[in-house]
């Protein structure tokens, strides 16, 4: 029987090792082994423990109101 060969994808034994001309560039290898991480879930509010600590410092007189307001603005959300 005459057989018309098909083109087949190459693969690797331990999984889908993609071939790009037979090799990865270092950048491609790094990208494959470090898939992009999903963005962190946005927090609903500022870090409550930091706010509690600042509130305590304000209440105990360690911070002035202006200092407190400035530091609260810097607490990441």
């Amino acid at each position, binding site marked *: *029987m*005459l*057989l*018309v*060969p*098909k*083109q*087949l*994808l*190459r*693969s*690797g*034994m*331990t*999984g*889908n*090792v*993609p*071939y*790009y*001309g*037979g*090799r*990865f560039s270092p950048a491609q*290898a790094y990208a*494959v*082994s470090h*898939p992009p991480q999903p963005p962190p879930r946005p927090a609903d509010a500022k870090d409550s423990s930091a706010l509690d600590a600042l509130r305590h410092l304000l209440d105990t007189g360690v911070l002035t109101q202006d200092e407190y307001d400035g530091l609260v603005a810097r607490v990441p959300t």
Partner: protein
Amino acid sequence: MGPVQVLVIAFDAPTFSGEVLAELTKLREAGIVRLIDLLVVSRHRDGTIETLEPPPEVERGLGKLAALVFGQPADEQSGATADAALADAPEGSTWSLADAIPVGSAAAVALIEHLWAAPLSEAIRRAGGTPVEETWLAPGDVEVLEALMAEP
């Protein structure tokens, strides 16, 4: 199913010693590999590939699965070839029997399942590993390795 390797071995004439099959049988009995199918083909001077009867040493009926995996009968070839589906594949990422078998040669094309590799692949996947390179050491490098291993 474990990963399946394709071995294409060219011969001047499509004859086998039973030795290769005996080795494959030993590996199969040890649970290491399984010979799924064996196709024997001849590549003519005009480049066409013809399937041949398997040698008498092997089980009759072998070769049908492999023929379907690697090609299609010339008289059943449709106008739309499977190549179109691979049009976007990166250069060097595909192959075919026509690439592998020299003109004027016969070849045995073996489909070999590596039974040992399935659990390893699963373990790699579970660990979050990503295979980025996979190859064999060249014979010269194997000699270097052997010499290093022989050092006290």
